């Protein structure tokens, strides 16, 4: 099997990896904020239900969540059956939203009370204070921890293989299983490294761009 044949097959797997990465990121960023509002809510039931939910999701392995979401409905004889990739996406979005929500919460709580008070003195509403003063400072502060999670997400996509979604690592394993050649397994490392190099570059760029908010 030639280098190009292998590269082509791995590229197919990398396509799935990118889909999982991209959709999870785009959906989890706003969903995480909603969960943050839930866990910071002043209404106790909402606050505690959200906190317990975040505890369950963060406290169990993502692999287990993928297995449960895909096989669970069928095993319990419900009439919903998610396609494999959809099940993976649902599990990833829920999991990453919870992690993001805690990062957001840390960011929001790091903004000093004085800024809220200053906003109130100027006659701004609570919503205005949050979106016009707090939010952008929060974004600047959470870029490094978010970068951590985003790069972890790239590698976590390989968990999709537990329900036989052919992402990058699984694609390499299929080549090994059929052709009995081993180097593709190490070649996948190059794909991950290049992609995380690109993300690191973009994250650094984002950090630089927001340098003018000195908070």
């Amino acid at each position: 099997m030639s280098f190009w044949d292998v590269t082509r097959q791995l590229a197919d797997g990398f396509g799935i990896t990118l889909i999982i990465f991209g959709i999870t990121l785009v959906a989890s960023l706003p969903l995480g904020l909603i969960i943050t509002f839930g866990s910071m809510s002043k209404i106790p039931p909402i606050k505690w239900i959200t906190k317990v939910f975040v505890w369950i999701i963060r406290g169990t392995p993502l692999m287990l969540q993928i297995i449960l979401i895909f096989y669970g409905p069928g095993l319990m004889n419900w009439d919903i059956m998610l396609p494999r990739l959809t099940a993976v996406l649902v599990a990833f979005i829920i999991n990453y939203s919870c992690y993001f929500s805690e990062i957001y919460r840390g960011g929001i709580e790091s903004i000093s009370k004085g800024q809220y008070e200053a906003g109130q003195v100027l006659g701004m509403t609570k919503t205005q204070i949050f979106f016009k003063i707090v939010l952008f400072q929060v974004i600047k502060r959470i870029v490094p921890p978010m970068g951590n999670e985003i790069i972890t997400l790239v590698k976590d996509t390989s968990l999709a293989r537990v329900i036989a979604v052919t992402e990058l690592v699984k694609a390499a394993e299929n080549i090994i299983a059929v052709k009995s050649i081993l180097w593709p397994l190490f070649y996948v490392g190059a794909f991950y490294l290049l992609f995380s190099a690109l993300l690191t570059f973009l994250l650094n760029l984002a950090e630089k761009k927001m340098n003018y908010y000195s908070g």
Partner: protein
Amino acid sequence: MKKKILSVLMGAVMCFGLCGCNGGESGSDVNGSVDNSSSDNGGASSDWNYISGKGEIIIGITQNVPMNYYGDDGELIGFETEFTKAVCEKLGVTPKFQEIEWSKKEFELNAKTIDLVWNGLTVTDERKENMLFSKSYMKNKQATVVKAENADKYPTTAEMANITIAFESGSAGENVIKADEALKNCKQVPNEAQKDALLEVKSGTADACIIDFTMAKAATAEGTDYADLKVLENIQNTDEEYAIGARLGDTETIAKIDAAIDELAAEGKLLEIAKKYNLDDALLLGA
């Protein structure tokens, strides 16, 4: 570790399942409610209606030579691929090949994400508790794979005592190890797949592995990275056979498949497919 997580999850799901079908007289597995709905249809088993109603039958496979694998033109080929297609043609349903993780085949069946396991599946007593098998169509045996320079060290399994030995978790190879006096005392390395067991031997993290003979032969052929490994036939094999696995209770489906296999064997079609992949020596039917 993963196995532990799985069994805990399986347990949890089973509990839910039990709560769900309070009225079920058997209440023993998740198929309970399927059987209940079938009794509404006047006693006829509905498992075949379910499959024929979909028009397609989902076949759980893994990629392995010579059973199911992608040829150079990207088409799925292999003994089992062609055998499956021939049987499905007789049954009037379209096969849909779905790659699965082998260790989760029982999950896939019970969750109805696949309808059959058909990929060189060895019949074992343990598996009979979780699956319904068709008639056996092919012999299987287990083989030991070691590095070529160690090939003379192990004329019988007795010399293999206390070495490190790799195998696929839940495979027929594991049963061989558990049943053998010498092998049972080896340091055991349960792997996710047979190909991982080969990798253990190649990298020296295990001294030997025990996997299916056909797979071992194909994987260590000239031109592969495993060409420096050697397949030993030093195991006292009990009679092992390949068959097709279905959900427990899918009796009508299995009856139809068995009839189709008999027809193919009588027509000589089964032998023809087996010859194409050099498996005719192992064939049990129509040879």
